[in-house]
């Protein structure tokens, strides 16, 4: 990072010409401060980043807190203290709770380390859930969910409950669920953290395939294997962007 101008800083890792140039999400000078009584801790210090359609991003960092906080803000689960976060064309930093819920459901797909499937519901119902909150009809939801179950190779397990599946299978259900609404970005928080290396590799293969189809993936991880597969690596340190590089380009 030779230039100190923040405007150009975010463009240092702009994709090469083979990737579409449109920005799907961008962070503008995001900071986050937690207040605990009289004590205040600033976790993020003015982070600015642009994310492009079809990109495959890995965010790395030593401390869990900074990564988690950034992930929560990117996931519209938490609001920045200052700064703007654009998801699509909309600034989410001033949105009310209901609008945030809607935008989460419509534009984001979540993949968690611990899968976070609902145990009472079967595979198909878990995949259908984001569609339900978006108001899709039952017939459409069913068709989409069946298609996605097939896509992740679980079309013969749609009636199973999550606890009847292996970790890798559960994470595949979670991927199908994240794809259900065709989101702008898929956010994955340590997606292979709970998996053995074989299942983890399978999940990453799926990610590669999805990215090859044009899906935008953003992962938070400390695993080098994940970073190797990504196209852009962002390193955080002390609540700031330490480095932002394009890989394999």
């Amino acid at each position, binding site marked *: 990072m030779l230039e100190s101008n923040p405007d150009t800083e975010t463009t240092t890792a702009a994709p090469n010409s083979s990737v579409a140039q449109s920005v799907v999400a961008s962070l503008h000078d995001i900071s986050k401060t937690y207040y605990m009584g009289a004590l205040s801790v600033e976790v993020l210090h003015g982070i600015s980043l642009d994310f492009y359609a079809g990109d495959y991003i890995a965010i790395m960092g030593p401390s869990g807190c900074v990564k988690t906080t950034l992930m*929560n803000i990117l*996931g519209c*689960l*938490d609001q920045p203290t200052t700064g703007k976060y654009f998801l699509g064309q909309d600034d989410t930093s001033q949105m009310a*709770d*209901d609008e945030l*819920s*809607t935008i*989460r*459901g*419509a534009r984001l797909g*979540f993949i*968690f380390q611990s899968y*976070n*499937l*609902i145990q*009472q*519901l079967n595979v198909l119902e878990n995949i259908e*859930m*984001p*569609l*339900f*909150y*978006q*108001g*899709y*009809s*039952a017939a*459409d939801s069913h*068709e*989409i969910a069946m298609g996605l179950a097939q*896509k*992740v*190779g679980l079309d013969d397990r749609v009636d199973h409950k999550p606890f009847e599946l292996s970790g890798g299978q559960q994470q*595949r259900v979670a991927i199908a*669920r994240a794809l259900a*609404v*065709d989101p702008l970005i898929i956010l994955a928080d340590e997606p292979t953290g709970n998996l053995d290396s074989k299942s983890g590799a*399978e999940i990453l*293969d*799926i990610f590669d*395939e*999805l990215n*090859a*189809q*044009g*899906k935008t993936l953003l992962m938070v991880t400390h695993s080098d294997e994940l970073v190797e597969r990504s196209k852009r690596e962002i390193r955080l340190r002390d609540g700031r962007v330490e480095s932002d590089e394009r890989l394999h380009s």
Partner: protein
Amino acid sequence: MSDFTLNSDSPVGHPGKAPPTHPHLAFNFVRLKKITAVGVKSIYSHGLRSLLTVLGIVIGVAAVIAMLAVSEGASFEAQQQFRDLGANNILLKSVKPAEVEASSSRGFGPPQAIIYGLTIADITTIRESIPGISNVIASRIVKKNVWNLGKSMNTDVVGTAVDYPSSRNYNLRAGRFFSEAEVRDHANVVVLSHEVANTLFPIDNPIGQSIKIDSDYYNILGIMESEGFSNLGQNQAGASNSAPSRIYIPFTSSKSRFGETTTRQTAGGMESETVELHEAIIQIDNQDAVIEVGEIIGQILQRRHKNIDYTIEVPLALLRQAEESALRDQIVAGAIAGISLLVGGIGIMNIMLASVTERTREIGIRRALGAKKKDIITQFLIEAVILSGVGGLIGVVLGILIPFVISAFWGMTTIVTPAAPLLAFSISALIGVVFGIYPAMRAADMDPVEALRHE
């Protein structure tokens, strides 16, 4: 990868399957059905716990219905009794004064000749001083042995007027009542009660035959139907006759055959009683005035009689009392049932709070996947309503069965009105909403980040 193949030409997104342009319009029956299905699943997965939770509601609803049925039945019975006595009637009866009764039952002292009770002069005075009295049916009641050949029974011989049956909704089963002409002629004719007819004529038809009282024969004209409730009413009023066996002869015949004085053997000797009238039914034109007229008659009789040797019975007033006490019963029953429903509601709130805590993570997941606070509230509220609704349904079934059991084993009249189950069920559903709203709001107010992190 053997089990994972991405179809490279599969389109991104879902062409032709866009979400509705007005998502709020999509909050419809289908959506509700889906949320309900999720709720049922969650309740079903904790079967025993859910069952125990709704027990309070079950008991409350069953209690409401059963108690209403029992009190409704009791008040129906009471009202039936008094209605049979006639809502337009005032009943006067002669009773032996208390002090005379006391001295004669001691069984010593000289033979007594007692004169008491209502007189024809009383009735005349009442008729003359109160307007609006349409009719007075005066009766004399004498206890006699009645014979049909070898069979006999002791019964009340009621000397009365032709209007007697119509005055108290008392109908003939067969034959006819005696006529005005027969009253004028002091005719030896008789109408039997159902019970007497059955005892004296177990096989053959009594109509056209005759019975013997003392040394006279009386032609049987008709048979009354079973007295049922009206007789119970008389017992309650403390009338001299307690047997359902009564026979009816013209007033004039009774007076000329049996006289006004009866003698009977007591422990201490002979005792004679002179009673002019045993019973009088006063009919009033206007039902609204019945209770007031009853009070005026009371004042007139109080002036004319030294001792209280009469009773005044206003069926309408008794009916009102019965209705009031039925209402009181229902209020008490309602309060008990209300408390039990309240306890049931608190049980539901308790279990819903536990459920919210238990499912914190689920709430977080749903919020992350696009559920609004409103959606979470709806989900938990529906679950609470399902719980209380199922409890209410079980309660309704029990509440309808219990009165049947009560009727079968204790012979009480119970009436389940359609309103009772409906009311009880609506209350139980309402309880689900009232006691479910706080846990549901707590669920919705959770911070999604915190909820997702919850173990």
